[in-house]
């Protein structure tokens, strides 16, 4: 069984640009979660999608947004990038709701 996949592995952008990160959940999983992990900090919850709907979002500004597609894959968009957005962005999936989460390898976003 394939695990959660994320692309790209690394992404380098400059301030003010937009970044798009992608996630494919484990087959059969309907929930997708996005987390931000800045260097030396814990996992900060960003967004939770289930069955195509946004179920919850963390304490992040509106320039962090996303969506979930009919095949349950998901996209995270970060607009107007700031230096402090540099972090490891992790995607996780679960069967339904906040059950055991299976994480992808992450996308390392660097904002210059």
């Amino acid at each position, binding site marked *: 069984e394939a695990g*959660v996949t994320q692309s790209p592995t690394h992404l380098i952008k400059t301030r003010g640009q937009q970044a798009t990160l992608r996630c494919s959940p484990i087959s059969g999983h309907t929930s997708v*979660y996005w*987390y931000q992990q800045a260097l030396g*900090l*814990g*996992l900060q*919850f960003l967004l*939770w999608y289930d069955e195509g709907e946004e*179920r*919850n979002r963390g304490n992040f500004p509106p320039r962090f947004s996303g969506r979930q597609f009919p095949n349950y894959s998901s996209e995270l968009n970060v607009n107007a990038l700031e230096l402090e957005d540099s972090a*490891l962005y*992790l995607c*996780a999936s679960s069967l339904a*709701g*906040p059950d*055991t*989460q*299976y*994480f*992808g*390898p*992450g996308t*390392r976003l660097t904002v210059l």
Partner: protein
Amino acid sequence: SQKIEQNSEALNIQEGKTATLTCNYTNYSPAYLQWYRQDPGRGPVFLLLIRENEKEKRKERLKVTFDTTLKQSLFHITASQPADSATYLCALPRGSGGSQGNLIFGKGTKLSVKP
């Protein structure tokens, strides 16, 4: 507001000893608690889930306890090995009881096992 605390940022122990990590929470009545392992630059990996009606759970060299009165979980690794060196995270569902929200993660404890 709901809060999770892992007692120490780092824990150094000798190979063969038992590592004990602590997770405390406040303003919660979680239906379960989870523990994950994270290696540098990688996504966390699920280890164990313990439910509110379970006092203890084991998996190979791992043991987790859950005290809902103390609002605390202890995570033990017996006969520790250098390969156990990693950051260990506890996680709780945001909602209480049967109403579940997303998971909230503690900041983690970095375990180093010296040979």
